[in-house]
């Protein structure tokens, strides 16, 4: 670097902000949603529709009728579950991008029991066995990249991501091969028998109760237990953890087993509670969207409830506007993307600020 380059100050610099007060940070976050709605409104206007009518329709189509509300909740529940699954791993700064695959293997195992043991197990036993099997297999699927990371320091982002495609590829094989519905002459897995479908409480499968219980479990686990403390220390600094005598490899593997197990349970409720069959899209992208939920809620399990409900409303609502206004699917995805981008972008403005050349530049690092 030459001397001039160092001396010449750029027009705009990005500088770390001193910590914002909670009130101000909340204000920034709320205004980001407002900005998102305004930009989205502009998009809707350009497409030739009335923004207010479209927004009203999103609310109506996701919350205001029985079927719509149930369907929104059915989106929120697995999303929340997947976010809870990746939370401990992310706290540890282990970037688990494999929830999608962990959900899928949980779903595969549950499907096995639902298809082949529905006749010889009473329903409650079937549910418990499938639940346990999904958790164990999901956990093991999560354990694979953790083991490699702990042993050989492999890159967990790539590893977990690649395992997704293996799991989904395996579903394709099952769907076209051994598990194909022979009665239909079409490559799909049969629908589950009524006895293999989860009972409903208030019109939604019991998965929602389990997920809400998991919210409390993860909260307690992360903040009130030795395990949770170890996860936090490993996340902050592996060296510190090592100096204080923690077995880092063990913490990583244990946490990823838990993470995968919860994702596996989500897979179980997807097939037994929602879809009643297994398909390539059983995980439905929840494993990826959950990353957004986890970030936006800053890994706080209670905040996740609100964020996943919000995203579910957006998703269900965007389906509705496709129907009622004929807005193409791609355009309503752009709208959802805009809103998310603004919400995530606000985190940037909470942590950083722009410094212009003319202004005095004291006080920042």
């Amino acid at each position, binding site marked *: 670097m030459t001397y001039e380059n160092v001396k010449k100050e750029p027009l705009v610099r990005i500088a770390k902000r001193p910590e914002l007060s909670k009130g101000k940070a909340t204000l920034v976050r709320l205004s980001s949603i407002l900005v998102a709605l305004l930009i989205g409104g502009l998009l809707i206007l350009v497409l030739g529709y009335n923004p207010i009518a479209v927004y009203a329709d999103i609310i109506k189509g996701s*919350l205001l*009728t*029985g*079927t*719509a*509300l*149930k*369907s929104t*909740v*059915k989106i*929120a529940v697995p999303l929340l579950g997947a976010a809870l699954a990746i939370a401990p791993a992310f706290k540890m700064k282990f970037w688990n991008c494999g929830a999608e695959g962990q959900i899928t293997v949980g779903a595969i195992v549950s499907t096995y029991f639902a298809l082949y043991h529905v006749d010889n197990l009473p329903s409650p036993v079937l549910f418990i066995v499938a639940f346990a099997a999904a958790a164990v297999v999901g956990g093991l699927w999560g354990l694979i990249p953790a083991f490699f990371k702990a042993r050989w320091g492999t890159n967990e982002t790539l590893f977990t991501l690649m395992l997704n495609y293996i799991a989904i590829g395996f579903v*394709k094989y099952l769907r076209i091969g051994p598990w194909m519905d022979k009665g*239909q*002459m*079409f*490559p*799909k897995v049969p*629908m589950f028998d009524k006895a293999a479908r989860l009972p409903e*409480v*208030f*019109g*939604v499968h019991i998965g*929602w109760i389990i997920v*809400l219980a998991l*919210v409390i479990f993860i909260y307690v686990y992360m903040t009130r237990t030795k395990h949770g403390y170890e996860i936090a220390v490993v996340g902050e600094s592996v060296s510190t953890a090592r100096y204080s005598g923690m077995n880092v490899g063990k913490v990583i593997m244990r946490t990823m087993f838990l993470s995968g197990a919860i994702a596996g349970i989500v897979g179980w409720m997807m097939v037994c509670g*929602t*879809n*009643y*069959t297994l*398909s390539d*899209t059983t995980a*439905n992208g929840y494993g990826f969207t959950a990353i957004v939920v986890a970030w936006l809620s800053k890994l*706080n399990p*209670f*905040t996740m*409830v*609100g964020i996943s*409900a919000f995203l579910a409303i957006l998703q269900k609502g965007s*389906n509705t506007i*496709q*129907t009622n206004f*004929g807005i*193409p*699917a791609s355009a309503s995805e752009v709208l959802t993307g805009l809103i998310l981008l603004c919400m995530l972008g606000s985190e940037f403005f909470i942590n950083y600020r722009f410094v212009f050349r003319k202004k005095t530049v004291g006080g920042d690092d």
Partner: protein
Amino acid sequence: MKKILALILALVMVLSFAACGNDEPANEGGENAGTEGETLTAENIKIGFVHVSDPSDMGYTYNHDLGTWKMAENLGISEDQIINKYNIGEDEGCATAINELIEAGCDIIFATSFGHGDYMTEAAAEHPEIQFCHATGSQAADSGLSNYHNYFTSIYEARYIAGVAAGLKLNEMIANGTITEDEAVIGYVAAFYFEEVISGFSAFYLGARSVCPSATMITLKADSWSDPVKEGQIAQSLIDQGAVLISQHSDNTSPATTAEAAGLFHCGYNSDMAEAAPKASIISARADWSIYLTYAVECVLNGEEIVTDWCGGYAEGANFTSPLNTAVAAEGTQEKLDEVANGIKDGSIHVFAGPWSGYYVWDQTPYECAEGEWVEESETRSAPYFGYIIDGITLLDA
């Protein structure tokens, strides 16, 4: 503070569950009750559609949608009596879409994609007061439900005619010296491999072979009804493997535009794909869904039973071919097509007539169809059930 907020959020979620639980009984009587008392007329009937994509595919859904509006015009039904659910996948979203249509008070519900069948069957069993019609499906007869119906057209007839146009084009290319006899390879973009698709490409192939005896066909599947990018990639892959003419059983025009970009030729499905690829697309096999839709809605209005399996033929106009793209087609094609069309109408031409040999797709049992014999299609149910892979057709990825 944070905890209180979180608690409130959790509470809101729980309460919303409770609320949706309470909603249920109200909905059952809800909007449906309004129409139940009075007689159904063209002014108050409500019609629901579950579509696998949206009309922007310019293919299957576009074509089915055309049928909807033609039916509305025929019967004097206004736009706001028709509710279209677009982009409904073959998964749980389908159950939700059907439930929302029921909630909105629909008296008759149509679903257009094969994979919607399982959800239609369950909804039909739960709501005997509503008529359910499922295109391309095969579950109605087995379900034994009087309010559940399947419909399709004998599209294989229009496909056969399109195949003849393709065969004549291959002949022209052979005569010009562009290709040798052995290079008369048709590439077929298939959505899946099962009877509906197999019936279609076999008919197309037999049509082509009836005029170009050296024609062969290679196929690849997209594992999706509608995936514009993948359909285009498959078409390109078929071209790379020697195909000089592309046809398709998939919803988008990307195979047509891919063929055009390669300077090759194409026969379309669902819509007149010559609009998307004027230099490549010779002719398209199409269905006119308005005939069935008009019939089914009329039955509901008159309080009559809808037949369990409906399969509209070429002779009654339920399937047809788009106008021949004379700029691309070989000389003399129109005359030959008229002759074949007449043969199909009067029954002198059977699409799946021998001689051909092949095997049954599900268990590889060999099958021989001798000269003068033919395999029947769509006689016992509306959804196609021709499942033989004829020698000369190679499934590259089966």
